[in-house]
């Protein structure tokens, strides 16, 4: 995380308000851009169709396709994303750029196969027209591949291109939707849903192509070790599970709520809970400020302290110097976390207060507002759980990070399960309590770890090199020898 840090630091040195604002906007753009662009696009599409048609069932069908594509593509790619992130940063660090393009080909093949098979099995016996199934399947595969591409471009700080790709793709989706309202393709069944889905799919494909072009021009050289990265699952299995558990934890309350009284069944294809889902989706948006603030602080102040500390520890610092650097680092983490927490709390509370009026103005159902209010608090806790997991990973404290992510999954599931029978008034409490309790545990773990980090840094180093063993290392060898699937 050096490239963007450099630019930001220059911006922050100028103590001028204007420049600072520019820095924040830039960070906002790079970290939240794609997410905002995606949410906005989908909402514009829904708004447009709402405005021109009043077939709620078809709107829900489209919505279901989008929700399932986003949720499940994230769940299946998240474990790989975190493995790949680590793999890329290791390879970038030792300047072995050839492996990056190769691993991209390898992971894309795996993800494409995996998502294709899942979608194929899922849609196979559903009662939907074949063309709709094709488009849904393509959307699912494409979105999965985009998550992977973003990891690669994110690793080399190509945030701007990511945002641009989403914005351009979104514009195309919107334009095509408008066109299709006037000149719809005459699909036999579910014409409206099929037309917006096609428009959306085209936009997403465009996004994918832009990202792909950018990737290919950045990494124009590659070797043949396409599946080398698989060995990382054996080497660092905890990373895989951290990604899996955290992402599952993030969606487990939604999935459980789909089977609550709020759940609806759409053409026996999608079961989801529109009221709960939209409340929670909106709640996620409220933590974007924290993501931005944190990213800025990680990239600037924290990273300096972190580098100084590990520099002293790995080279020639005396223990006293190392300890002073550690304390500076600890103070920096505390300061940044407390500062972002304060800011986020103010933002969250403001949003809670304002939500009644805004939601009333927009005519959103009361129940959404109530779920939203508690989910906002849940997201507040949850985003800090994520940040603490990231900090723990910075310190190579994978076991602890794994514990936190597993705890998040289990507590969210348990509390959601507990509150479902309690009635609508308690919906969202499971997510909140799960996140809250996990956050408390995560903070305790973080404090414990940071105090003893020097001990961990030194004592946890393996005492000598051993031969690497494991099924995935074996698998990586076999696949690499064969070249490709």
């Amino acid at each position, binding site marked *: 995380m050096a490239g963007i840090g450099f630019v930001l630091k220059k911006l922050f040195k100028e103590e001028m308000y204007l420049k600072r604002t520019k820095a924040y906007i830039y960070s906002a753009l790079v970290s939240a851009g794609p997410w905002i662009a995606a949410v906005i696009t989908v909402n514009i599409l829904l708004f447009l169709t709402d405005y021109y048609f009043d077939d709620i069932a078809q709107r829900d069908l489209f919505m279901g396709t989008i929700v399932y594509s986003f949720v499940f593509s994230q769940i299946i790619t998240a474990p790989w994303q975190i493995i790949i992130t680590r793999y890329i940063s290791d390879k970038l660090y030792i300047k072995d750029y050839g492996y990056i393009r190769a691993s991209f080909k390898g992971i894309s093949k795996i993800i494409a196969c995996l998502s294709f098979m899942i979608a194929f099995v899922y849609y196979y016996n559903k009662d939907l027209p074949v063309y709709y199934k094709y488009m849904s399947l393509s959307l699912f595969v494409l979105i999965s591949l985009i998550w992977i591409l973003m990891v690669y471009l994110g690793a080399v700080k190509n945030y701007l291109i990511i945002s641009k790709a989403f914005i351009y793709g979104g514009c195309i989706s919107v334009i095509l939707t408008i066109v299709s309202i006037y000149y719809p393709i005459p699909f036999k069944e579910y014409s409206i849903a099929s037309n917006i889905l096609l428009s959306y799919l085209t936009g997403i494909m465009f996004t994918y192509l832009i990202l792909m072009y950018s990737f290919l021009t950045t990494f124009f050289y590659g070797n043949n070790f396409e599946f080398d990265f698989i060995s990382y699952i054996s080497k660092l299995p905890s990373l895989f599970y951290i990604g899996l558990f955290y992402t599952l934890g993030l969606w487990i309350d939604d999935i459980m709520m789909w089977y609550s009284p709020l759940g609806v069944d759409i053409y026996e294809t999608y079961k989801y809970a529109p009221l709960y889902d939209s409340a929670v989706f909106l709640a996620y948006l409220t933590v974007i400020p924290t993501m931005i603030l944190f990213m800025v602080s990680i990239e600037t102040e924290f990273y300096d302290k972190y580098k100084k500390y590990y520099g002293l520890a790995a080279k020639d610092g005396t*223990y006293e110097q190392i300890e002073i650097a550690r304390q500076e680092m600890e103070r920096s983490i505390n300061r940044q976390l407390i500062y972002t927490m304060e800011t986020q709390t103010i933002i969250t509370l403001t949003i809670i207060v304002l939500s009644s009026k805004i939601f009333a103005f927009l005519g959103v159902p009361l129940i959404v507002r109530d779920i939203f209010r508690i989910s906002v608090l849940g997201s507040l806790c949850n985003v800090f759980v994520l940040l603490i997991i990231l900090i723990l990973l910075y310190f190579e404290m994978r076991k602890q990070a794994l514990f936190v992510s597993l705890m998040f999954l289990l507590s969210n599931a348990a509390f959601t399960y507990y509150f479902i029978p309690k009635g609508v008034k308690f919906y969202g409490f499971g997510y909140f309590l799960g996140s809250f309790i996990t956050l408390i545990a995560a903070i305790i773990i973080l404090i414990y770890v940071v105090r003893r980090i020097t001990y961990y840094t030194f*004592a*946890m180093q393996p005492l000598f090199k051993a031969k690497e063993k494991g099924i995935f290392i074996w698998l990586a060898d076999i696949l690499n020898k064969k070249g490709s699937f």
Partner: protein
Amino acid sequence: MEVCIISEGSYPYIPGGVASWIHQLVTEMKEINFKILSIMPSEDETLKYRYDVPENVIEIKTVYLNGYHNISPKKRKREPHINKDKLKELEEFLRFNKDVNWETVIGIMANRKKMGDCVEFLKSQTFWNILLNLYQEKYRHEDFNRFFWTMRSMFLPMINIIQTEIPKADIYHSVSTGYAGLLGVVSKVKYKKPFILTEHGIYAREREEEIIKSKWVQGIYKSIWINFFYFISTGAYKAADRVISLFERNRNIQLELGSEKHKTIVIPNGVDIKRYKVKKEKHEGFNIGAILRIVPIKDVKTLIRAFKIVNLKIPNSKLYLIGPYDEDKEYYNECLNLIKTLKLNKNVIITGRVDIKNYLPKMDVLVLTSISEGQPLVILEGMASGIPIVATDVGSCRELIEGTKKDDIGLAGIVTKPVSPNETADAVIRILKNEKLRQQMSLNGRKRVERYYTKEKLISRYSEIYYELR
């Protein structure tokens, strides 16, 4: 009776003085069953027995200093289950405190269940705290990373060795201090059996010389490593029921290093005098023999320079370098160059690995210019064969050649200062030019070996000790 001999870097894999000595002991004591616990630096497929192991050696177990490679390095940390008092003792141990209670410490360390294996322990918070205290007390200004890794690499093989499964026996007999001595202490503590220590050289001194010269340790770490070896040697001296040296000088060093006087004994090497009752062969000119490996510690260069001086005075003299030369190729080549430069090609014969018995009959004098020795068997063999000796004043060479205070046999050769070609040359010339002196020395040497340095004496003294302690 079963005796477990613990050797380090020697029998049955690496030939040399100590290994031959062990071989002699086990071959001669037929009524005793021996087990060999051989410590080697690292697993090596080319390792093979270099001796015909006799039948009464009923077990040979080899442990490797880097044997920790079989433990997973990724093991999680585990805190040792030990109480505060014992922890304190352990801390004193890791600080090389000489007053430490070895029995307590070895009792803790050898217990893998309580202590954890070497990887687990070196990852534990307990070890970290001890190390940090030590660092802050003594090494505050050194960079921490190197300190930490040096200490770790020091304790890693040590703890692993301590936790070795040791063969059961009635008596344990280490043939050096160091890691072999450590295992002797462990067997004494664990099995409550007698422990005998025989030292041919002084292990800690030898390591000290090696470390001072070495490039792989720098700065304060040289002294830490040296202290480490002195420390574990002291442990062996203290725990041993008998501390045996080959000659008086080494016994005094052992006393200095912490062994108790009443435990120390001198038992010199012994040779099979029947085997060395050789008939001299008549030959042209003079033959000077040097039975040695061509390695720096033997200071072959001084020998060659000395021979140049001899050769100028006695042109029909020849120098035989008898023994292997493949151990240190670089040094060997340097010697070859020196021979060439001094134009001695025709008069220096390098035999390589041979049976020395074929050469002894035609030698007029044996020369040794080593800078360090214990009690060289080759001198005893030479004396047994009736050959006058010229040797440097190292180890027990003087004792062998001139005799101790109580013996009135007379000189068996001439003792010289180390690294002085002139003195060595003078001594050789004196012996070669004086037929009478040569004969006297030859008789004296044979007589001294017969009286003090026979194989029978050696064997009977050890067997006495074994039976007494059992």
